């Protein structure tokens, strides 16, 4: 899927200081029956966000209007469990463009990169600094600079660098997807397939 290029993002952030947030929490399986990729944002964190009678749970962060922004900050091992890309779609559809954590599960991270959500892995210490900054000022802003591979806390200037492989970085900066690239490799793939039995 082609998506909007990602370059630099300056935004406040929504804190979710819980560890091992799995993709069943991000989007429960009963909402995976759609056959298109839009609309999942309404059910992002469904069971943490709503009571059984569909009224919002007052103590959940997405229901607190003080917290806004395009950056979601989660505890370590964010996105574990099921490979459902619907989890990344839900994050994107809700309006987030960047997820920050001290550790990501592998498939979730890949899924994010494939749809234009930037996963930013920071040190546990810097993650704690981010949570503290939001706690002291919910409107605190952060700057995610993809070309420089750096995220900073605007109020203090404190910053942390992050890794991304060069190929994926170029894709994110330009909104490219892998399929365009792979289709350009067709001849090589055909040759490989021809000598590879079923």
């Amino acid at each position, binding site marked *: 899927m082609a998506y909007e290029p990602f370059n630099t993002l300056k935004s406040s952030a929504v804190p979710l200081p819980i560890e091992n947030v*799995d993709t*069943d929490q991000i989007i429960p399986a009963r909402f995976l029956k759609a056959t298109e990729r839009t609309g999942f944002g309404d059910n992002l964190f469904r069971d943490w966000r709503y009571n*059984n009678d569909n009224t919002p749970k007052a103590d959940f962060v997405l229901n607190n209007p003080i917290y806004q922004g395009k950056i979601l900050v989660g505890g370590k091992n964010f996105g574990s469990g099921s490979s*459902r890309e619907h989890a990344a779609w839900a994050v994107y559809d809700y309006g987030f463009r960047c997820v920050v954590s001290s550790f990501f599960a592998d498939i979730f991270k*890949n899924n994010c990169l494939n749809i234009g959500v930037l996963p930013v892995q920071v040190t546990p210490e810097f993650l704690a600094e981010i949570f503290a900054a939001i706690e002291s000022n919910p409107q605190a802003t952060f700057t995610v600079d993809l070309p420089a591979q750096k995220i900073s806390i605007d109020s203090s200037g404190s910053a942390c660098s992050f890794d991304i492989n060069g190929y994926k970085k170029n894709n994110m900066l330009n909104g490219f997807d892998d399929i365009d690239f792979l289709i350009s*490799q067709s001849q090589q793939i055909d040759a490989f397939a021809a000598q590879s*039995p*079923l």
Partner: protein
Amino acid sequence: MAKTLFDKVWDAHVVHSIENGPDVLFIDRHMVHEVTSPVAFLGLKQRGIRVKFPERTFATADHNTPTINQHLPVEDPLSANQLAMLEQNAREHGISYWGLGHQKNGIVHVVGPEYGITLPGATIVCGDSHTSTHGAFGAIAFGIGTSEVEMVLSTQCIMQPKPKSMRINITGSLQKGVTPKDVALYIISQLSTSGATGYFVEYAGPVFSEMSMEGRMTVCNLSIEMGARGGMIAPDQKTFDYVSGREFAPKGQDFDKAMNYWSTLYSDEQASFDKEYTFDGNQIEPMITYGTNPGMGLGISQHIPLAQSLDGGVATYKKSLGYMDFNEGDAMLGKKVDYVFIGSCTNGRIEDFRAFASIVKGRKKADHVTAWLVPGSHLVAQSIKEEGLLDIFEEAGFTLREPGCSACLAMNEDKIPAGKYAVSTSNRNFEGRQGPGARTLLASPLVAAAAAVTGHVTDPRTLL
């Protein structure tokens, strides 16, 4: 240069390496199900392209199917639509399709091996994290997202950086009543749910050599629960015997030729791993989980750890115990059980039902327990009947449902009610995984059977 099993299979499938980027990896076989594929097929349509190698692509319906009355139309309109989409997409692209009611239908990771789609040395992907199951055959098999499903449908390739390597050795042998599921839950409890993230695991040592193919599938299946993309076991005679004669496996001379190659698939003696763990198989007890991720497991006779004994993460830990309504220090033995689920790609194979039968035989289901016995495929269901296990189950007060993923992820009607406790042979005990508010205790088929007949958490060794 000395290579690991993983290196050998990976390197044989690299079409192209990108500098400072991923490898373009050729995928031999791609399995597709109804939940993670519709948007991928839609992508193909929008690009105006077709599935590149339909003969390497196999579709089955499993996640979102009912497990009773499969001969009737699916009631939920959204589920019915998703199933119809899979059928239509498979037909449009000439992909073999084993839909609801088809004799080859079943859970994707159960039918793959049953029909010889799963082969040693192959690369196998599916839009499902438990694709790691197929690593039991010495294949590189891993779960992918829908964007990647679209990549494989359109180009038969995927772009992946080569993961780091890990070997997990289990020495010694297993005690009576200790199953492959316990081995896997034990490893995850030692490594945590993120302990193998970024790695591809090889399982090695006498416990795995002795293990049946079905047991190996259970262990490899759970690799993702410690964060690993996949796990694999070097193929041996047991593997070749299992594969031989299956529908989509090579035949005659082709099989002999393939076997010569498969016999070279093992980690060279000098090969090194980025990380290596060794555990003593004799120390493993029947396991059970007490929290809301698969790493929160312990030997069935043990007590729930105290928060103060943990290395950080106390708030998350307390939230988890709060959800389960368990207390630090509680014993697991004796906890009341409301539901028992045996099935899933983890433990829905014939050996699992044999194990379940070994305990329920001559006993009765506890009155207050609701039990769902869901075979992984029609072939499994057929064996259950042919081997006389169904008679044992019915005698003990159990009924058998029809194949599917069922209560493992509760996408269909098979949901554990809020607040109820389920001993489940599936793979995830996340909050709400088996239904909103449901509380899951992951365990082996033996532990599930012991709970089903006693109505509480019971050490199966006392009933064997």
